[in-house]
């Protein structure tokens, strides 16, 4: 396909860049100075990484110590943010967690100056050694299999050389010497399935795009991560943007596209900033733009900021949005691979799919195929949040069970509570109860159980979570996000929401559950796009597995988890309340707590807004604040006359 001479040019061009990257890396590695790597993705910054960085800088200056401060992306351990890795010559690299400015100063003083690694602040060493326990001993580290997020949190996302030194862009350089068909073949053989949720075989999509007869073709990266509670795409873009760019370039080369667009949420300002910079750097070194690495292949890359509409995750809606219209999906076929943006063949893949491509091509299809299960090979990335000890981003081979992931890797449920359910796949997914913990994580098993892989959001819920309320929450979301095109989705979700609202307010009626089920099935059948087709899933799965909770709400006007506020009351157990203690009074935002005649406290039910602050404020030794459902079970205590007003 490609003349020999280009191969040589490409090789030479890449070799020169690689040499420069290796030289810079060597210089950094061999420097005798201590190195401080600080996690600077959005979650790190939200936890105070900027303050930590200034504290390090101030402490270093104060003590006259020289050290290299190296900002990096996110390693996915959100519970531990801000995360800092310190490399002090003579010691293995050490990972410190929750590094506050105070701890930062201590690390500089005790570790860098005096050589005491401060065992009480460290999580572990990054390498095996005899001195300090290694992080590899923790399930949170050793049970993960990192393919897509392998370099996340270990390289500087704003420095392209950091990525190249770790083997980046080698796959692209190699591919440019191969026939596009060969690359597509490799992707097909790897069995890679689209990570956007539906799991369509990526190679097959590319074949269709390759076949489409058009001189102009477009590649779009879908980074419109709208699922509330999922942030894998954001983390990848913020921590390793070049891996995504390389994946897109490989795809463009394989299918014959010369234009690339990254559709990223405007709500991710840091990702937008880092991507813009990454594109500029890649252009400068010749990985994007005209004549990539001296070959005849051109690729112009652009960024389009999505304006926050969940439905734009659907590919035809996304195209509408880029064209300047309301993001409303259209009927398929024709599929975007035949007729997409501006009527041109368009390949749309998710961030995680593109980020997998360089790894697949570098290590080969058979390597990738051997990870995980046969039908869904590779890894799955989840953002595990909610009531779990170690929330964060986890990448595991497919086929790992939910139990291993939630109770093992993520440390289980905090506060000695019981696991109740896990919500997988966001507003399109479902809630699975304890019985399903043995379910292996792959596209087909999760769909069979009623949930779906979806975008990868996973919210763990403990016994205090009301499943009706969770269903209501998701319906509220999808109802607002429904674009309004299909009647069943537009009006159906509205009615589902109204029924659920009634139930949680204690106004449920006989026959409501049947109506919920009927309506759900109709919405699924009568909607065009994935949003409507999956919107009733949270209702259907919670009805399937937690029907008795719905029944308690309707028949007994009781919320078994005491979460639905209309069906719950807070009261203070006078037996346990201590005279003279005022802890709850100050915590109440509406002054609903008063002093009884024998100088104990009680709740004025007419004022109480049921926020639960008093329960938190009440000292553990008394634990006098109680929650009951239905609310009439709370004892009625009259406010003494002189206290009124």
């Amino acid at each position, binding site marked *: 396909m490609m003349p020999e001479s280009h191969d040589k040019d490409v090789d030479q061009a890449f070799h020169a860049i690689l040499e420069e990257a290796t030289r810079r890396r060597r210089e950094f590695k061999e420097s005798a100075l201590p190195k401080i790597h600080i996690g600077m993705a959005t*979650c790190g910054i939200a936890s105070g990484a900027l303050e930590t960085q200034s504290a390090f800088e101030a402490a270093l200056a104060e003590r006259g110590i020289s050290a290299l401060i190296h900002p990096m992306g996110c390693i996915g351990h*959100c519970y531990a943010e801000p995360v800092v890795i310190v490399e002090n010559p003579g010691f293995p690299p050490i990972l410190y967690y929750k590094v506050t400015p105070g701890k930062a100063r201590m690390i500089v003083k005790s570790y860098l100056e005096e050589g005491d690694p401060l065992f009480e602040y460290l999580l572990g060493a990054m390498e095996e050694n005899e001195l300090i326990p290694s992080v590899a001993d923790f399930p949170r580290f050793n049970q993960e299999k990192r393919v897509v997020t392998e370099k996340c949190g270990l390289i500087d996302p704003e420095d392209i050389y950091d990525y190249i030194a770790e083997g980046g862009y080698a796959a692209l350089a190699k591919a440019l010497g191969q026939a596009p068909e060969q690359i597509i073949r490799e992707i097909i053989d790897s069995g890679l399935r689209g990570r956007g949720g539906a799991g369509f075989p990526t190679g097959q999509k590319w074949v269709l795009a390759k076949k489409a007869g058009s001189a102009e073709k477009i590649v779009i990266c879908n980074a419109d991560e709208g699922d509330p509670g999922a942030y894998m795409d954001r983390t990848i873009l913020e921590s390793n943007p070049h891996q995504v760019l390389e994946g897109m370039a490989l795809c463009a080369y394989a299918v014959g596209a010369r234009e690339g667009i990254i559709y990223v949420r405007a709500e991710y300002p840091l990702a937008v900033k880092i991507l813009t910079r990454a594109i500029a750097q890649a252009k400068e070194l010749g990985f994007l733009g005209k004549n990539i690495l001296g070959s005849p292949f051109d690729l112009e890359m652009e960024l389009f900021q999505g304006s*926050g509409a969940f439905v734009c995750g659907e590919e035809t809606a996304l195209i509408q949005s880029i064209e*300047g219209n*309301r993001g409303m999906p259209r009927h398929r076929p024709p599929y975007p691979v035949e007729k997409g943006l501006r009527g041109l063949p368009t390949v749309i893949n998710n961030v995680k799919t593109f980020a997998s491509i360089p790894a697949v091509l570098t290590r080969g299809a058979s390597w990738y195929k051997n990870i995980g299960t046969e039908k869904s090979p590779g890894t799955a990335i989840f953002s595990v949040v*909610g009531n779990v000890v170690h*929330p964060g981003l986890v990448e595991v081979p497919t086929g790992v069970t939910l139990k291993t992931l939630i109770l093992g890797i993520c440390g289980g449920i905090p506060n000695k509570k019981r696991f109740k359910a896990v919500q997988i796949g966001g507003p399109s997914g479902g809630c699975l109860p304890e019985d399903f913990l043995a379910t292996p994580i792959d596209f087909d098993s999760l769909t069979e159980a009623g949930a779906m892989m979806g975008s990868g*959001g996973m*919210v763990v819920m403990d016994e205090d979570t009301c499943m009706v309320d969770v269903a209501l929450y998701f319906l509220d979301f999808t109802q607002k996000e429904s674009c309004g095109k299909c009647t069943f989705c537009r009006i159906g979700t509205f009615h589902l929401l109204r029924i659920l609202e009634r139930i949680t307010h204690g106004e449920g009626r006989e026959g409501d559950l049947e109506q919920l089920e009927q309506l759900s099935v109709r919405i699924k059948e009568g909607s065009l796009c994935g949003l409507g087709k999956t919107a009733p899933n949270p209702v259907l799965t919670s009805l399937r597995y937690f029907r008795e909770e719905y029944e308690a709400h309707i028949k007994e006007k009781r919320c078994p988890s005491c979460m639905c506020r209309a069906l719950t009351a807070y009261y203070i157990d006078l037996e346990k309340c201590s005279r003279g203690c005022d802890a709850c009074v100050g915590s109440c935002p509406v002054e609903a707590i008063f002093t009884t005649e024998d100088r104990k406290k009680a709740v004025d039910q007419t004022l109480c807004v049921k926020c639960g602050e008093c329960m938190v404020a009440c000292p553990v030794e008394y634990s006098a604040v109680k929650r009951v459902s239905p609310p009439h079970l709370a004892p009625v205590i009259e406010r003494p006359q002189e206290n009124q007003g």
Partner: protein
Amino acid sequence: MRESYGLQLEEKSMNDDPASEIEAIVQDVTGRLRDFEKEKGSLIPILQMIQQSHAYLPHEAIQLVADHLELAPCEVYGVATFYNQFRFHPPGKHPIKVCLGTACHVRGGGIILENFERKLGIKDGETTADKEFSIERVACVGCCALAPVAVVGEQVHGHMAPSKVEGLILGFEIDKQKKKREKDEHDAGIP
């Protein structure tokens, strides 16, 4: 609570004249529209540009955009109102965004929103009369491990609680009073 905050209404400074403010926006937008091609595909980037510089989309700006792209203003509104990003009223000086993503919801984000609403006497989507605060609910800011989360201005506040809501607003009020006092003292200091 509602009244206690309302008191500050009278303090509202009179130096920002809404008419001249709009005029400035119109002028700025007119200048920048030239950088955008006259095609429908520019619509969303243009709206984002206006909102980024002026924090909201005034009606006059929408009209300009419509003229530039040769669309009816209703078409521009049709697109702008479809997306959650765009707002049509100026936000407060301290815009408060309460995250109601799944993780925040499970951990009581709704209660946090309610507390802000009660404390400031406005509903979500509104701005206080003195233009100090505005409240907005957002779907997910992507800091789920810190749930419940509220973003005030640019700063993310994790692990929110009703008492923290009170503390935050009190902090701003004290700050404002302090600045006012300093200004008064400064003014008085100059003979």
